């Protein structure tokens, strides 16, 4: 056997500092089992609408197999710009303020790297998508977590950010509708946050990838607030709304100087996003909104079903206003999130994700994705009900 010598020295400190994702751990456990119902999946259960798949196949047939412009096909950037304006009333110049990325994931990474210097603090609002804190650390920054609470419906309050701001604070990462809580924030609630952000001159990374999946009203984009456009980087993509997770396509928009900086990083690391995927995305924006609406109707019905059924079996759950996750409290069972999820998997074969993997405030909860068939949801509710009796 090969000796592992000085492994510590050959890995960067930044990479050693970050933990492997808790989701991975749970995946390893669940993937070894058969016949499980999975509520553990953070992606749509729909396959990408056929016209989008067809457009991509056709682009291949026509020989679009070369690199595109670094920032992405100009037609696509124009279409993204129109889409954002029509849907969310945010105006961005397609030539200088839109960058097509490899998923919102890359968008988040280039955004952080474009603004964070070593030692800068970035506020991460938890429970949250698992990659925010690690990408801040990898960029040399210091993630500072703020935990939202069930009592506030997992919304962020201005007092909570005031409490953690220091003179090192550079930016805050927001994500509403939220993964894993499904929380959304209204214009007024966002405005209260914006006031603090302006006062302390912070930048905002607003991850609005679930914007389309908003059930009880219109999504309000952070960058629409007065004076916020100039300090907001808007990150989004095609994964959730258009059921295109495997395509790896997203975009970032923001003020020109920041987009130019992000483009530099993107240019030297990715060159450009996949050409095939970009052609699919064009079709998605041009002709895909009816499909999005159908999927949203279906998620809304399932959300209603899950929240009501959880209440019936005695699993208290706030009503998530967006995304496709329910985040019920399991505190009354006396189990930790990890134990609950593991025992549920072992005894009833239902996979959920323990809330603590999403950070502060997540303990005592589980994330249940309702992006699965009604039949699965009915079964899952029955099994979870039996489990907590």
């Amino acid at each position, binding site marked *: 056997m090969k000796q592992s010598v000085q492994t510590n020295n050959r890995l960067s400190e930044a990479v050693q500092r970050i933990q492997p994702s808790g989701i991975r751990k749970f995946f390893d456990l669940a*993937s070894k089992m058969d016949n499980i119902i*999975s509520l*553990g*999946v953070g992606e749509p259960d729909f*396959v990408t609408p056929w016209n989008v798949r067809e457009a991509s196949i056709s682009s291949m047939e026509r020989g679009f197999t070369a690199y595109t412009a670094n920032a992405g096909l100009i037609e696509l950037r124009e279409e993204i710009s129109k889409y954002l304006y029509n849907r969310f009333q945010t105006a961005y110049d397609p030539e200088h303020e839109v960058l097509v990325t490899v998923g919102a994931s890359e968008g988040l990474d280039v955004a952080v790297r474009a603004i964070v210097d070593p030692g800068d603090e970035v506020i991460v609002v938890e429970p949250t998508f*698992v990659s925010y804190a690690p990408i801040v650390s990898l960029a040399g920054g210091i993630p500072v977590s703020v935990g939202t609470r069930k009592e506030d419906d997992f919304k962020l309050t201005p007092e909570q950010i005031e409490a953690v701001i220091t003179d090192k604070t550079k930016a805050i990462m927001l994500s509403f509708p939220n993964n894993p809580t499904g929380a959304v924030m209204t214009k007024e609630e966002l405005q209260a946050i914006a006031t603090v952000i302006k006062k302390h001159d912070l930048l905002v990374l607003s991850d609005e990838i679930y914007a389309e999946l908003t059930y009880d009203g219109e999504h309000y984009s952070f960058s629409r607030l007065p004076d916020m456009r100039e300090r907001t980087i808007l990150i989004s993509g095609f994964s959730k709304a258009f059921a295109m997770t495997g395509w790896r396509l997203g975009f970032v928009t923001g003020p020109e100087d920041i987009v130019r900086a992000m483009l530099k990083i993107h240019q030297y690391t990715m060159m450009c996003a996949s050409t095939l995927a970009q052609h699919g995305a064009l079709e998605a924006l041009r002709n895909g909104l009816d499909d999005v609406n159908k999927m949203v109707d279906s998620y809304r019905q*399932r959300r*209603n079903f899950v929240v009501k059924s959880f209440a019936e079996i005695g699993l208290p759950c706030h009503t998530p206003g967006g995304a496709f996750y329910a985040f019920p409290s399991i505190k009354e069972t006396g189990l930790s999130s990890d134990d609950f999820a593991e025992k549920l998997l072992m005894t009833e074969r239902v*996979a959920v994700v323990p809330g603590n993997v999403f950070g502060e405030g997540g303990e005592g909860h589980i994330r249940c994705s309702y992006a699965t068939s009604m039949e699965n949801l009915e079964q899952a509710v029955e099994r979870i009900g039996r489990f907590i009796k």
Partner: protein
Amino acid sequence: MKMESKDIEILHIIEENGRVSLSTLAKMVDLTEDEVKQILKKLEDKKVILSYSAVIDWSKVYDHEGVTAMIDVKVTPQRGVGFDEVAERIYRFPQVKALYLMSGAYDLSVVIEGKTMQEIARFVSEKLSALDSVISTTTHFQLKKYKHDGVVFEEGEDDQRIVVTP
């Protein structure tokens, strides 16, 4: 008939799955079971919901394979009643599964199901062609069903996702 948005939502759900339970349906549309029951009754009474049925792939059931034909029929419309009278005379036959009045090269499109080709041939020659107002018929047999009523036969789009993702 003007309908409430909840009525339409319910119609969409049961069109896709007529077997959904009342309690599940009620939760999905955020109404009580009683309210949903009333809506369903209203929609049934007004003949918006005509029946609850299943799409079955009979070719998979041993000895139950049948033959389906679509027959283009040209007819002479009757004074006063147009196509309606001849249409009624045709759709009364139990073998007729569907009947549409069409624009274009022919007037009526008749969908017939039978056990054998002979059975359908007999129906066409003895029943359809024998009607006074029928001028001509063209019979097309279906060879294979790929998609019917929005449902794709054979292929299921299986869940390709791994069990836990961020």
